[in-house]
């Protein structure tokens, strides 16, 4: 095949891909972008199939059909709350593909010693394998199949680093082998990488999941890029590197939004202070969501004569502008439909309603926007943190639904807690605040939310869905 022709075709495909990314500015454009990326990939597959003589075409076609059909079926059935689990699962599938291809190409590569291809092959193999196992754990946790809280092994960080060194050493010896010993040692390397993926992902949980899933997005791309070097395929390198860049950006955004350092998430350095008394040694499991014992004082009781629900309805009626702060608790209670129904009611009585979206409000970057879009909230009402924070002061009512840490003023006022310095939504600046949370316990961080004790706050505790239904009923019946 003519080299120049090949280069031009590759360039065209890469340009269609990049064109797709430039369209990712509005939802409408993004649909075109997604379509053009799919088209580019399909084109690349057609080019490969037509320009090489593919052996055993029946097996290849069968594998293509089975994989595509399953992918399509699952993608059509999954609901929006399961998207993070689904995406993580797909990362895992991509990881397997990357390490299998690297594996095959490494066993076929008969050059002795270390060339760039070989090193890239090792990297593709190791990163692909750890992406696979890490993603399976992440997916299981996100789908609530793995209900275990983050597990910290004794000397966890040492194990992680030890495995890393072991993988590098295995790679070093593998470089000089041929034939059967090579195959065996490569399999050992895969096993070590899978173990590494398991070890680093089991200790991450809860609010750190968005970081993990973004990171795995980056490693899946990186594995594809390295896999591309060993087979000398420009498309794999270009696409893989672009995805790696994208995943890195999202990882950075997530870390910044939680005031977490990537290293701290993975090496598991936890800020030690009075608010974090859970010991992290000897198989002790950290029940991250259950640090309740810390803020044990009961919340300030609302004045006995005023029923909070009545008060809430009154405040809702009086408010002219409202900002809703949704958190993962809302999604978990599947209350997004009721929240949007309630805000539609408020809008119908002439109030201005907007939604303030914290970057880590969901279980993956941007997840909350998708959930609200599913509940048919117009996307011009979903406002990012930085754009809406200054507006809380001028707002009559902030309605918090299933959010705790992202509105915890302690992030600004206290030092040495896990959330200190984390950017928050300034809901406490609103004139009145309505909290529809399951309970008044601290969120994932374990830090008490002083907002709950503020006089301008009305607490409506209980299942968010039930609370919202009550609010809607009362609001309708009394109008």
């Amino acid at each position, binding site marked *: 095949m003519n080299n120049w022709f090949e280069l031009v075709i590759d360039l065209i495909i*890469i340009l269609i891909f990049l064109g797709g990314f430039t369209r*990712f500015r509005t939802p409408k454009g993004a649909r075109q972008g997604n379509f053009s990326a799919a088209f580019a990939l399909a084109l690349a597959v057609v080019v490969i199939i037509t320009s090489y*003589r593919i052996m*055993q075409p029946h097996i290849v076609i069968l594998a293509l059909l089975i994989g595509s059909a399953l992918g399509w079926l699952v993608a059509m059935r999954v609901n*929006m709350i399961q998207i993070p689990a689904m995406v993580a699962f797909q990362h895992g*599938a991509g990881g*397997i593909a990357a390490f299998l*291809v690297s594996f095959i190409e490494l066993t076929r590569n008969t050059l002795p010693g270390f060339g760039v291809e070989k090193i890239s092959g090792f990297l593709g193999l190791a990163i692909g394998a750890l992406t696979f196992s890490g993603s399976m754990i992440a997916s299981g946790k996100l789908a609530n199949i793995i209900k275990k809280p983050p597990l910290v092994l004794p000397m966890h960080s040492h194990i992680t680093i030890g495995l890393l060194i072991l993988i590098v050493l295995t790679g070093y010896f593998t470089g000089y082998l041929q034939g059967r010993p090579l195959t065996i040692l490569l399999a050992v390397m895969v096993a070590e990488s899978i173990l590494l993926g398991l070890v680093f992902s089991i200790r991450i949980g809860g609010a750190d999941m968005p970081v993990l899933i973004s990171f795995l997005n980056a490693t899946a791309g990186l594995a594809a890029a390295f896999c591309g070097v060993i*087979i000398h395929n420009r498309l794999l390198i270009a696409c893989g590197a672009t995805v790696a860049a994208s995943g890195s950006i999202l990882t950075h955004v997530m870390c910044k939004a939680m005031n977490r350092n990537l290293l701290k998430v993975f090496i598991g350095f936890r800020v030690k202070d009075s608010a974090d008394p859970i010991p992290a040694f000897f198989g002790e499991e950290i029940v991250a969501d259950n640090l309740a014992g810390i803020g044990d004082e009961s919340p300030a009781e609302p004045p006995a004569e005023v029923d909070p629900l009545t008060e809430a309805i009154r405040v809702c009626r009086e408010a002219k502008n409202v900002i809703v702060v949704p958190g993962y608790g809302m999604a978990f209670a599947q209350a997004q439909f009721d929240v949007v129904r309630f805000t539609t009611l408020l809008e119908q009585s002439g109030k201005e309603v907007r939604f303030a979206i914290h970057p880590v409000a969901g279980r993956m970057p941007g997840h909350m926007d998708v959930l609200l879009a*599913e509940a048919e909230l117009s996307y011009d009402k979903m406002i990012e943190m930085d754009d809406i924070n200054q507006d809380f002061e001028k707002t009559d009512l902030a309605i918090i639904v299933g959010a705790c840490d992202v509105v915890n003023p302690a992030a600004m006022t206290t030092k040495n807690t896990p959330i200190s310095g984390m950017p928050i939504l300034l809901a406490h600046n609103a004139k009145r605040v309505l909290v529809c949370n399951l309970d008044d316990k601290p969120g994932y961080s374990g830090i008490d939310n002083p907002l709950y004790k503020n006089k301008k706050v009305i607490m409506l505790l209980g299942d968010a869905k039930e609370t919202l239904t009550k609010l809607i009923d009362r609001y309708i019946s009394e109008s």
Partner: protein
Amino acid sequence: MQAHARQWVKLTEFNKTVMSELLIMLSVFILSIIIGYLLISKVPPLLHTPLMSMTNAISAVTILGALLVFAVVPDIPDTVFGALAIALAAFNVVGGFTITERMLKLFKNKKE
């Protein structure tokens, strides 16, 4: 055997032009990271989930590598692993793009 011989010839060809090949691959890698960074840092947070879902599908570009496994006569383990890689990559590609489309279809602006 013939196929292996062919691969050998291909490999020695690679050896001759190895420097220029490496340079091209390195520049493709670096350029893609830079361009990717510039384009993707402008994506609004509103679209971060669809973005990740789409890039997830794109990362299964390894399907090309999996297909190329069958460009030379594969032995039995290679056939099994290669077919598995094709199926999983296809699962990732088709699933990723489909789910991205489903998500993006949900976004509506009632003002328009």
